[in-house]
């Protein structure tokens, strides 16, 4: 999910479930944990495109999340190239 959020300013929760093929429950849990780690933030706003009164959830990586993901990517790239 972080690979998707990294180049973006933000993404809607619904879009992330579509792209990742994850269930809403799993994605929600993942996002909650990333928020607790300080790697992501969420915002909710009403959307005229929704039929019900639920708010649209938008997710974005924090600067700390972007830095952590870049570090993670560099590390696994080095690891993959090591053999």
């Amino acid at each position, binding site marked *: *999910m*972080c*690979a*998707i959020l990294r*180049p*973006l*300013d*933000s*993404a*809607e929760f*619904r*879009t992330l479930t*579509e*792209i*990742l*093929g*994850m*269930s809403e429950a*799993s*994605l929600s*849990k*993942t996002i909650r*944990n*990333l928020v607790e*780690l300080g*790697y992501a933030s969420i915002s909710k706003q009403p*959307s005229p*495109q929704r039929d019900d009164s639920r708010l649209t959830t*938008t997710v974005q990586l924090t600067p700390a999340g972007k830095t*952590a*993901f870049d*570090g*993670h*990517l560099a*590390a*696994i*790239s*080095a*690891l*993959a*190239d*090591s*053999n």
Partner: protein
Amino acid sequence: MGAGLRCQVASDLSTSSRFSYAGGALAAPSCPNRPPLRSKFFSLSMRATDTVNSMESESGRYGSDDARTQLGLITADRESLAQRVAQHPWWHTLASAALAAVIVAAPVSGSMWIVTLISVLLISASTALDKECDKRMGVSIMKPVGPKSLTVVIVLVTVEVALFGTSLGIVFSELSGSIAVNSALAAVVMIVGLRMLSRTMAQEIRHGR
């Protein structure tokens, strides 16, 4: 398999990591050759693929194989996002082209006040249009993804501003030229520029910039 692994990550996020902190960096005690990692992502994602590579773990190939699996997942995610970004809504492109054409043609009014008013109003409309486009696409990209898309944006804005300046020159400084041609050029440049921008951004997303 990708979705399954991601779900595994999600379920593992709430459990304790098998990796330990060493001086602020994450290190894997079972893999002494693994470089220290300064991200919690690694421990989270490594647990996800433990199930897949448990056999390889025993044979000592755990690190690089698992890293390649992770890179494969990241590449797949980037590809999915790139496809979405490449499918830029046609109505946004056409509306942006129409706005650019009207702004470039605004000097034909003959009054700088009207030109300023039209420009401010239509630039505001363009911003609102961008936000609506982001909402419909489900993702928001407010700035260029990489150096190539930044170049496209700079060239696009420069050409549009030059066409607008030329229109001002034609009306107020009696330069030779046609505002209608300028306006049509602005629309065409906007269409080509936006299509090029979405393709370039998709390409940069695929390759991680």
